[in-house]
């Protein structure tokens, strides 16, 4: 029996649950949270799931029906979700060691205790998060991460588990064959859509069948990752902690891409957007202490548009020297689109990608050809943002600063649409929740 189980804690309907924390009136009602620009459904309350609303549904296709069902829709309130996520993770880190924050709403932990003690601790931890921040989490306890994912999923869907399931609960009689036979290959952690298709071609459809493949053979045919997944399904831990996810993360490319609230016509608007996103990307570049050598910009029209055919363009600038200077990078981003824009196309998406990243500390070249590093401008921007709020200062012209709450953050007419944004209860003084005394 495995004595040091892995614990996976994952919030239930995280975004939708966050919306209910400060707004009791939406608790117990069908509620959906929409992606950037109020595009697609990305999170649903249980009541919304019960209505049959699928994740990823474009909002405009169900809007009318949803209104009839009195579905409440909210724009993604990233400020609130980030704040509650940080609090939730911090609480849980006090219960078990080795926390690896895997995404905004889930983390792995390593228990030094046996299964039963781990289960008891997990129950207290779950209660502490529910009481402390009002977010329900489900917990899967298993010998490996892959099985922890499966048990967690089980705990979520079966209320009788009271939010906690161990692999032992599911595998008692048959080493888990029945459970693994009910899990489609796509739903196994680490199996992407393309890989699932190839596996199905070989007749491997359920997790149980994958588990029974010869791992060495599968490594030869596919990859070492797949071999690890097979071993993990057998209860042999072999997926190491992804330290990237916790702290020392270094992306090998940085992409900053958004949809616009309203389409942009013409080169100048696109160049403004590219410049702004280049500055966002640059901030991330500096945060991971890298320099970039290539700045690419792409823009695209809507694939759903009735007005014009889908079209996209892409341009790229190779920097003379690696740089993390926002002036250089945003200038390159503006330049990258030059002359490539079709004036009549209504563009709705712009993205800036920084590639060819090198480590700022170890980058080394001939003396006269040194890296062009930021001279301190970013630090000044950060200070201004801390004091006056975001979107008060930046490089280049970025459109007229909007007055509304939603575009006040980003600054321009083309900024992200967040029409159904709830209040940012924990990060904005002027959006603080109100309690009634009357």
């Amino acid at each position, binding site marked *: 029996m495995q004595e040091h189980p892995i614990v996976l804690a994952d919030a239930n309907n995280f975004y939708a649950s966050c919306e209910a924390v400060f707004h009791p009136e939406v608790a117990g009602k069908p509620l959906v949270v929409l992606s950037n620009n109020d595009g697609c459904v990305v999170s649903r309350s249980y009541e919304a799931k019960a209505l049959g609303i699928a994740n990823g549904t474009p909002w405009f296709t169900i809007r009318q029906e949803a209104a009839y069902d009195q579905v409440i829709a909210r724009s993604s309130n990233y400020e609130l979700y980030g704040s509650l996520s940080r609090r939730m993770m911090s609480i849980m880190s006090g219960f078990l060691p080795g926390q690896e924050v895997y995404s905004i709403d889930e983390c792995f932990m390593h228990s030094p205790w046996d299964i039963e003690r781990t289960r008891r601790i997990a129950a207290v931890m779950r209660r502490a998060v529910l*009481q402390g921040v009002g977010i329900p989490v489900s917990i899967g306890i298993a010998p490996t991460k892959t099985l922890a994912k499966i048990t967690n999923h089980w705990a979520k869907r079966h209320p009788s588990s009271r939010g906690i399931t161990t692999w032992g609960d599911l595998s008692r009689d048959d080493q888990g064959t029945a459970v693994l036979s009910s899990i489609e290959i796509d739903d196994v952690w680490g199996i992407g859509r393309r890989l699932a298709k190839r596996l199905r071609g070989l007749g491997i459809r359920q997790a149980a069948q994958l588990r029974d493949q010869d791992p060495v053979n599968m490594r030869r045919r596919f990859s070492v990752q797949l071999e690890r997944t097979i071993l993990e399904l057998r209860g042999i831990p072999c997926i190491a902690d992804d330290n990237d996810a916790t702290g020392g993360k270094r992306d090998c490319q940085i992409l900053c891409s958004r949809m616009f609230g309203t389409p942009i016509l013409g080169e100048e608007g696109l160049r403004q957007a590219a410049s702004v996103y280049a500055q966002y990307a640059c901030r991330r570049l500096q945060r991971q202490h890298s320099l970039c050598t290539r700045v690419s910009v792409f823009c695209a029209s809507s694939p759903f548009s009735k007005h014009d055919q889908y079209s996209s363009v892409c341009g790229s600038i190779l920097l003379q020297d690696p740089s993390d200077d926002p002036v250089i990078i945003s200038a390159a981003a503006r330049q990258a689109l030059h002359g490539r824009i079709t004036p009549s196309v209504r563009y709705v998406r712009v993205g800036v990608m920084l590639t060819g990243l090198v480590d700022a500390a170890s980058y080394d070249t001939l003396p006269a050809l040194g890296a062009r590093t930021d001279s301190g401008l970013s630090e000044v921007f950060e200070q201004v943002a801390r004091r006056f709020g975001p979107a008060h200062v930046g490089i280049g012209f970025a459109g007229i600063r909007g007055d509304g709450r939603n575009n006040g953050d980003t600054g321009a007419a083309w900024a992200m649409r967040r029409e159904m944004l709830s209040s940012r*209860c*924990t990060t904005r003084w002027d959006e603080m929740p*109100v*309690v009634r*005394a009357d």
Partner: protein
Amino acid sequence: MARLSDVISSIHPASESPVPVPQALEAVHAGFPSVAQDYFDGDFSLDEHIIMHPDTTFIVTVAGDSMQNAGIWDGDLLVVDRALDPQDGDVVVAVLDDELTVKRLVMHGHTPVLHPENPAYPDFIPSPDQDLLIWGVVTGNYHWQRKTAQRHVEQPVPPSVTYPGAKSSGGATVAPKHPGAYRHGGWGSRHV
């Protein structure tokens, strides 16, 4: 930070002196060194003092006068800790009619009662089949005494800005487009 070139240039050429003596890169303060330096570790923080559990504490604001006999006034900030288990006599934030409301929790035997601290308002006694949902326990409140000191509310009208020599009349007066831009009363006036 010292660059290598600075260090090299600060070393006297060998021809002038047999032993190269590096110059100090920093000025040396004459006089008694500040003893306080070793002791100063930053001012104390109000946050840290009043918030026991930062992960579970939220700040909310009060609307209404039903708690004024408890010293909680309209517009006050409340520090609410969700990690504390509510006890008899605590001021709590509870969910009533789908709204967050602040009341004092009083136990009548085994029945919890929500009691406003203002005789003009009635007690709320949940019916036997009604669950009383306590959102959090109020650990303290902050009441502004000088309303004009309060940030993020009505700010005085910003002064108009004069651009010298902008017009032939010897200086035009231009009202700022966004009053918000000046709400902190000018650069470097208060907060750093």
